[in-house]
C-alpha cells in the first residue's frame, strides 16, 4: 500500500500488470495520466491520429500477441470515438482495456464541457465497465479489469476515471489474487461430457471439425491440440473467418473456410456430416446460411467458454462449456485412453474429394502481361511471395477481405487479423499498426480495399512517426466492391452510391507522408511490385489496380442453404424476394 495520485496509480498498475504499450490520444480529462506517463519511460505510448484507430491498433496488438490491448483516451469525443473499436472487440472477443478520462465527479451530470455518459454509452458494448469515484478503488479496479478482459471469453473493459480522481491521492492496493466474487467462468470441461464426446467422435462415419476464433483465443496450445486431435481422428476441418490459422492450410485435412464465402467442400461437408464438432465457434449467420437447412442430419458437439453461445442459434446434442484447449486436450486423452484408432473414413473422404473437384476457388483470368489483374490472383501472388516470411496479415472489410481469407494460407495462429463480427471498415490499417508495434521485426501487411482504407487513412502519420515498416496492399477496384456485388445480386445492378469516386492518388499520398508509394497496373507488374514492396524498408503503400467488376465467389446468398452455393457469376439470377432482401 502506497499513497499516490490516481494518475500515478493508473500508470503503476499498468507497469505491475506487465503492460508495455498504450495506444492513445490526449485531452483535458486525461492530462494527469499523460503527465504520469511522462515520468514512466517503460511504458511506450503510441500516439494515434484518431481514437477509433487506437482501439483497432490495440486489437491488432492483442490478436497478434494474445496479450490485452490497452487504450487511453479523453472524455467526451475521445470516448465516443473509441466506441466502434470497443464494439468490434466485443464481437470478436478481443481482450482490451480502455481507460477514458471523465469530467470531475462534481461536474458529472451537468452537461459539462466534454462530458458524456461513457459508462452508459459503453454499457452494452463492453464485457464490463467501471466509473471510478474514489482513488482508493483504482488499484483493485485496474487489476480486476485486466482479469475480466482476459479471462473466460475475452472482451473489452472500460474504466472511466474522473479528472479529480486522477489528481487526488489515495492508497494503491494490488489485490493479492483475483477471485472475482461473481465472475468465475467455467474453464475446466465436464469429464462426463468429454467421455460422451469421445464416444460420439469414435462412432461417427462423417465427422467434421468446425472451429472458430475461440481456438485462437485459447492460445497456441489449443491450435496444437486441434492438430493432434484431427490427426488422431482423421476428420476434415473447416473454420470460420476468425479461426483461420488454428489449423494449417496446407494440411490435406483442411477444407478451407466455411460459410457465405466459404468453400464448396467445407459447406457441403457441413451439410452432409453426421457429426459436427464445433470448437470456439458460434454458429454465426454468416456461417450457417438458412438455419432450417443447416446440417440437417448431424449430431452436434459444441465446445465453448461462453455458455450463452451454446444453443443460441443451433440446438446441439452435447454442450461442453470450458476452455477450447483444455477440452481438446481432454478429448485427446480420452481418445487415447479408450484405445480408439479412428474409423475408416475413406468413404467420407471420397465424397469430400468429389466436392473438392469442383475447384470452387478457381477464377477466370487472362494470362498476358498487359492483362488486368484479378484480385484473387493478387492475393495468391502476395501469398506466394511471402511464404517463409511468416507475415502477419490484416484486412479491411469487403471483397478483398474474403479473397484474402480464401486465397491466403495460414500455417499458425495469431497471424490473421480481421474484423469478423462487426465487419468494421477502417479496422485493418490501424490493426496492422498495433501488430507491427508488437512485432517490430515481422512483415506486417494490411490487405485493404480503397474505400475501407480511407476510413482510418490518417494513421499514415502514426506509422511515419514511429517508423513502422507497415505495408498496405490495396486491392483497388474503384468500388465498394462488396456493396456493388450485393446490388448486382439483389437490386438488379442499381449501383446506388457504391462507386469509389474522387480517390486520392495513393502514390502521392505515400510521398506526402514520407512513405514509399508503388502502383501496379497489370499482371506483368504484379510479382515485381510485390517483391519491391517487401524489399523496401519502411512503410509502403501499394496501389494495386485490379479488375473492377470481379465478384467474390463462391457465395451463399443470404437466406439460402449451404447446398445452394453460387459458384460462378453465371449462377446469379439477379432478383431476390423481400424475405431474402430483409436478411443482412
Amino acid at each position, binding site marked *: 500500500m502506497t499513497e499516490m495520485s490516481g494518475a500515478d496509480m493508473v500508470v503503476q498498475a499498468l507497469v505491475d500488470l506487465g503492460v508495455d504499450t498504450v495506444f492513445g490520444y490526449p485531452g483535458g480529462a486525461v492530462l494527469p495520466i499523460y503527465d504520469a506517463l511522462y515520468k514512466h519511460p517503460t511504458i511506450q505510448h503510441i500516439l494515434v491520429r484518431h481514437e477509433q484507430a487506437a482501439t483497432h491498433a490495440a486489437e491488432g496488438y492483442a490478436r497478434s500477441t494474445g496479450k490485452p490491448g490497452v487504450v487511453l483516451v479523453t472524455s467526451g469525443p475521445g470516448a465516443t470515438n473509441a466506441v466502434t473499436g470497443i464494439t468490434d472487440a466485443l464481437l470478436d472477443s478481443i481482450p482490451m482495456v480502455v481507460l477514458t478520462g471523465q469530467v470531475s465527479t462534481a461536474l458529472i451530470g451537468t452537461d459539462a464541457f466534454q462530458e458524456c455518459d461513457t459508462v452508459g454509452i459503453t454499457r452494452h458494448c463492453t464485457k464490463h465497465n467501471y466509473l471510478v469515484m474514489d482513488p482508493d478503488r483504482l488499484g483493485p479496479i485496474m487489476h480486476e479489469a485486466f482479469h475480466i478482459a482476459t479471462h473466460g471469453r475475452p472482451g473489452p473493459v472500460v474504466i472511466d476515471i474522473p479528472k479529480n480522481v486522477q489528481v487526488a491521492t489515495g492508497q494503491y492496493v494490488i489485490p493479492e489474487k483475483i477471485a472475482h466474487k461473481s465472475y468465475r467462468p467455467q474453464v475446466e470441461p465436464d469429464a462426463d461430457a468429454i467421455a460422451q464426446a469421445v464416444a460420439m467422435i469414435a462412432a461417427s462415419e462423417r465427422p467434421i471439425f468446425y472451429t472458430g476464433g475461440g481456438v485462437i483465443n485459447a492460445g497456441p496450445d489449443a491450435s496444437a491440440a486441434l492438430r493432434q486431435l484431427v490427426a488422431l481422428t482423421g476428420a476434415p476441418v473447416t473454420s470460420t473467418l476468425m479461426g483461420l490459422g488454428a489449423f494449417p492450410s496446407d494440411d490435406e485435412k483442411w477444407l478451407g473456410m466455411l460459410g457465405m464465402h466459404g468453400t464448396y467442400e467445407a459447406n457441403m461437408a457441413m451439410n452432409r456430416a453426421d457429426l459436427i464438432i464445433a470448437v470456439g465457434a458460434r454458429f454465426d449467420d454468416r456461417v450457417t446460411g438458412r438455419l432450417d437447412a443447416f446440417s440437417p442430419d448431424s449430431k452436434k458437439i459444441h465446445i465453448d467458454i461462453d455458455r*450463452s453461445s451454446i444453443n443460441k442459434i443451433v440446438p446441439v446434442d452435447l454442450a461442453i462449456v470450458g476452455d477450447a484447449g483444455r477440452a481438446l486436450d481432454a478429448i485427446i486423452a480420452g481418445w487415447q485412453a479408450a484405445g480408439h484408432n479412428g474409423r475408416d473414413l475413406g468413404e467420407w473422404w471420397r465424397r469430400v474429394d468429389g466436392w473438392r473437384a469442383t475447384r470452387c476457388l478457381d477464377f477466370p483470368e487472362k494470362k498476358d502481361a498487359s492483362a488486368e489483374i484479378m484480385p484473387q490472383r493478387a492475393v495468391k501472388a502476395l501469398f506466394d511471395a511471402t511464404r517463409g516470411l511468416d507475415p502477419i496479415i490484416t484486412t479491411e472489410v469487403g471483397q478483398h477481405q474474403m479473397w484474402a481469407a480464401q486465397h491466403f494460407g495460414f500455417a499458425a495462429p495469431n497471424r490473421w487479423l480481421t474484423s469478423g463480427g462487426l465487419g468494421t471498415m477502417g479496422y485493418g490499417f490501424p490493426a496492422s499498426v498495433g501488430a507491427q508495434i508488437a512485432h517490430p521485426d515481422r512483415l506486417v501487411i494490411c490487405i485493404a480495399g480503397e474505400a475501407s482504407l480511407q476510413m482510418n487513412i490518417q494513421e499514415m502519420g502514426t506509422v511515419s512517426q514511429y517508423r513502422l515498416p507497415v505495408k498496405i496492399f490495396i486491392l483497388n477496384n474503384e468500388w465498394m466492391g462488396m456493396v456493388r456485388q450485393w446490388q448486382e445480386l439483389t437490386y438488379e445492378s442499381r449501383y446506388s452510391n457504391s462507386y469509389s469516386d474522387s480517390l486520392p492518388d495513393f502514390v502521392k499520398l505515400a510521398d506526402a507522408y514520407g512513405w514509399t508509394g508503388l502502383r501496379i497496373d497489370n499482371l506483368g507488374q504484379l510479382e515485381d511490385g510485390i517483391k519491391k514492396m517487401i524489399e523496401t524498408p519502411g512503410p509502403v503503400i501499394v496501389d494495386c489496380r485490379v479488375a473492377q467488376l470481379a465478384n467474390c465467389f463462391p457465395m451463399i446468398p443470404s437466406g439460402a442453404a449451404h447446398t445452394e452455393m453460387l459458384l460462378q457469376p453465371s449462377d446469379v439470377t439477379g432478383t431476390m424476394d423481400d424475405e431474402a432482401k430483409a436478411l443482412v
Partner: protein
Amino acid sequence: MKIKTEAGERHVLAITVDNEAGVLAKITGLFTARGYNIESLTVADITADHALSRITIVTSGPPPIIDQIIAQLDRLVPVHKVIDLNDAGEAHVEREIALVKVAGTGDKRIEALRMADVFRAKVVDTTLTSFIFEITGTSDKVDRFIALMRECGLVEVGRTGVVAIARGSEAL
C-alpha cells in the same frame, strides 16, 4: 413481407446482483438489446451490508429463449446467480402489492369496501370521499381486484411488480 413474432410461456426469474450503480441498467438493457420481454421487474437490496440486490423479472418466451435469457444474464460480470423459479414448478410463491385509490360516495363507496373485504384488501387511508386499499396477492388476484374497482370509482393504482421465492428450506 410481414414480420413474425413467437409466443411463449411466462417465467419468473430471480437474480442476485452486486448492488452497484448501473447494474439494473445493464440488465434491463440486455433485455431491450436482445428483444426479450419484461412483464414485471422488482429490485431491492437484500443483505445486511447492502452488497447484494435481488431482482425479480417476469418474462415470457419459448423455452430456448428462456434458456438463452438465463445464460445471457449469468455471464454478466455483476450477476451472482440466476434462478428460473418455474423450474421449481408450482413450488414457488409469488406476491405483488398494489395500492388502489377509489373515490366516490354513496352506494359505490359501500360496494368498494365490501369488495375489498372479500379480497382481504386493507384500508390504509380514508377520507369522506375516498379510500386507499392495500392488496397483496398473486398478480392475477391483484388484476381481478383492480378490474372490480374500475366499476367502483377507481382513480389511481400503484403496483410493485412481482416478488417470488421458491418453497422449501433451500436458499437461492
